[in-house]
């Protein structure tokens, strides 16, 4: 079963950190990322992951009466924003939940698991 693991977190809390604090927070989370990729290596070596640039740099595109309208900023003004995603093939939802809980951002944000539609 293929799943998208959507990583939501409050990006402004990162931006409030000084550069030093951000570096040490990253270093601190490194063993957890390594543990995650170890698990992915066993469960789905073909996992695809992408980290996104800040949501405030997002553009939103709509087409109204044939005209393309582009606005700055994310689509939804929610506190937590999508910061990245994994697309992975796992045996079942329980396994997806187990892996999602290993994503470091699960400890301060939310991991949303969505099955992919197969047509």
């Amino acid at each position, binding site marked *: 079963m*293929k799943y*998208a693991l*959507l990583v*939501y977190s409050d990006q402004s809390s990162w931006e409030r950190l000084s550069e030093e604090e951000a570096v040490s927070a990253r270093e601190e989370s490194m063993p957890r990322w390594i543990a995650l990729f170890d698990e992915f290596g066993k469960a789905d070596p073909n996992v*695809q992951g*992408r*980290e*996104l*640039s800040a*949501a405030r*740099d*997002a*553009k*939103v*595109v*709509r*087409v*109204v009466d*044939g005209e*393309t309208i*582009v606005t700055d900023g*994310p*689509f*939804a003004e*929610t506190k*937590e924003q*999508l910061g*990245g*995603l994994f*697309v992975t093939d796992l045996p079942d*939802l329980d396994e*997806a*939940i187990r892996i*999602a*809980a290993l994503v470091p951002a*699960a*400890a301060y*944000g*939310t*991991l*949303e*698991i*969505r*099955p*992919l*539609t197969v*047509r």
Partner: protein
Amino acid sequence: MEFLALVYGDPDSWESLSDDERSEAYEGYVAVSRDAQAAGALVDANELESTAAATSVRVRNGDALVTDGPYAEVKESLGGYYLFSCDTIEDAIGWAAKIPAAWTGGAIEIRLVHVDEAEAAA
């Protein structure tokens, strides 16, 4: 550069379409994949099952809290994505404008994919 185009739409309005309208709209999504692929601009595209099938996972104080449903209850939800490879964001906007949700009341959010410069250089 890679750009992730997040497709937001109102699932209720999708449900309210007739079968013909729905297959026409679906054809439109497939056409974007096909055309972007032909132009060498498509990395990946996927449709997500509805937020009714979502599961949210949070870990607090070492405990995994699992709830049914999406992380946030919003009217217009993420229904899928296209991952485009383009030289400029203008090109990505051009592709986004062809996605049916952009002109059927939804919206496409474009996000630049972060590149780890140290990794990219290696």
